[in-house]
């Protein structure tokens, strides 16, 4: 790595201006400052990620090093054919979660917009909407399970003559068949219940991000658009929303990544039947009773990774376009 100090110069020029104001010792320091975090990050995050991709093309019991056999695309084939009764319902749950959290994001944006209009006591509202975000999803799951969902005493069962088993009931709310699939897809009742608990946490998160963005919008923009005769919705849709693009991107990426990474709340509640998602499938093939199917688990992981990666790349392009000439 070169260490030319060409401040604020476009990187291309660094090649020509190769003089350096730094002493040898300073260069060593800088190399360490960049090197140590980079090595740690790459060794413990990227190397395992790449290893997972490689392992997804093998069969391995996960115990003895070197005992893996290359099997090509067999694991992927198995997932889409033999294990489709596990894979597609989990994928479908992720999809439902994604759609649901997107709606939650819109609610969060609406709350932020209303709070931004100079509501009295907006700080208090803000604190109340936001506080579930500081709780872990596992704790959120337990609070909802014991207080809201509980069959015998839950607040959502108050006044019901036939209490609902929110966490245990895996009956489907709706079912449909896809022509190429044997397994019917559908949303089970307990997953729907978990969605509500997740919304509790997600809406506040989006609200805070969006509110901060709204506050940074130049007020003269709104003034100008209202003088030009826009109504409130037109002002938001055509002036404020486009200006908020960086925040919109962040909110979208957070929504997608949260929907794909969902894990904690389901595992903490002992993985009720019908609530499986991709993250849980990956874990179950790698550790615990179903463990030892490293190839298969890794293939699930790679599918999850590919789903995330598109959005990660899109996010990065949006973030670094201005910086990267």
């Amino acid at each position, binding site marked *: 790595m070169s*260490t030319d100090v060409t*401040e604020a110069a476009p*990187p291309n020029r*660094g090649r020509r201006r190769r003089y350096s104001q730094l002493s040898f*010792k300073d260069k060593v*320091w800088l190399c360490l*400052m*960049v090197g*140590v*975090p*980079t090595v740690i*990050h790459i060794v*413990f*995050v990227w*190397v*395992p990620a790449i290893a*997972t991709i490689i392992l997804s093309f093998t069969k391995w019991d996960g115990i003895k*090093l070197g005992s893996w056999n290359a099997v090509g695309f067999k694991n992927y084939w198995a997932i889409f054919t033999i294990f489709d009764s596990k894979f597609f319902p989990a994928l479908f749950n992720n999809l439902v979660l994604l759609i649901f959290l997107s709606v939650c994001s819109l609610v969060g944006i609406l709350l932020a917009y*209303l*709070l931004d*209009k100079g509501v009295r006591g907006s700080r*208090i*509202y803000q604190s*109340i*909407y*936001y*506080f579930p975000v*500081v*709780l872990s*999803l*596992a*704790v959120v799951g*337990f609070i909802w399970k*014991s*207080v*809201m969902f509980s069959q015998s005493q*839950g*607040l959502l069962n*108050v006044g019901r003559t036939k209490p609902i088993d929110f966490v245990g009931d895996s009956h489907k709310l709706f079912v449909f068949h896809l022509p190429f699939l044997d397994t019917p897809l559908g949303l089970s009742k307990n997953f729907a219940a978990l969605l509500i608990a997740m919304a509790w946490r997600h809406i*506040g998160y989006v609200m*805070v991000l969006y509110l*901060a*963005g709204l506050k940074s919008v130049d007020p003269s923009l709104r003034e100008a658009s209202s003088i030009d005769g826009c109504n409130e919705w037109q002002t938001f849709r055509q002036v404020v929303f486009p200006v908020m693009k*960086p925040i919109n991107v*962040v909110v979208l990426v957070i929504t997608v990544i949260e929907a794909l*990474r969902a*894990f904690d709340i389901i*595992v903490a*509640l*002992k993985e009720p039947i019908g609530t499986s998602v991709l993250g849980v499938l*990956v874990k179950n093939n*790698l550790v615990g009773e179903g463990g030892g199917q490293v190839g298969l688990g*890794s293939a699930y*992981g790679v599918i999850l*990774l590919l789903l*995330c990666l598109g959005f*990660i790349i899109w996010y*990065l392009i949006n*973030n670094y376009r201005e910086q*990267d000439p």
Partner: protein
Amino acid sequence: MSTTTLTTVRRKPGYSRFFRILTYTFLTGVALAWLVPVVGAVYASFRPYSETQKKGIFSWPSKLSFSNYTNAWKQGGMGGVHGTFANTAFIVLPSIVLILLLSSMMAFAVSRFTWRFNVTLLLIFTAGNLLPAQVIFKPLFTMFQHIPWPNFLSDSDSGDLLGTKIAVIIIHVAFQTGFCTFVLSNYMKTIPKELNEAALVDGASVPRQFFQIILPLCRPALAALATLEFTWLYNDFFWAVVLLNQGSQRPITSSIANLGGQFFSNDNLIAAASMIIAMPTLAVYLAMQKQFISGLTLGASKG
């Protein structure tokens, strides 16, 4: 006269008043709905299980006590030097220090000096932070299994890193450094370059520029990140569950997974345990609300 013209210019008064009332009703309604689970949990946690079983949580209490809390504390093994709270402290505090140190060094080097690989490195770091944890854990697991680690430095007796708190610290540091570098480099870009130039002219070395000039200026960002990272690491569930297989070693948040079984389904005990676990992050949030939110927004928008 003049006031009436003003209002008519602004908007039809009845119309906007209607919307104001609607707005307040909506906001208050949502806020009340948001409080129900937590208020319910607090209320349930002070009442004996047998009573709420009979009457439901939504009833007048005949007995209030702390016994659920003391039981949760004892049965959950939360207190003491080897309790789950101590485990959390042992993992979270060193992690935060290391994360902030490494990421501020990295951010300093990439934001104050022009390197050829600046943007590439930042891309790698930011992308790494967004990877799903499930995707990387098996190779990591195997890796830790094959890194020898003396037993007297850990609380496991396997002779390797797997199952030690050090392993959890390492992965937290590796993962979170990505996010913090991203935030801090954005923050450092807003500090005028002239400061560095002046320091350079005065002959200050790189470490001196870093520790005595840039780092003190980053205090707000560091405080914001420290609060944010505290809640994130405190709330970590996944890594502690997969890397620490002995329940007694687990930090507080992931130990809740065992509580369900231990307490049968004593919902009030679980509510009390949830409240105990939620307390530290809620306290940090209430005390450091400003830092907390600025940390999130620093990460969301570029500097």
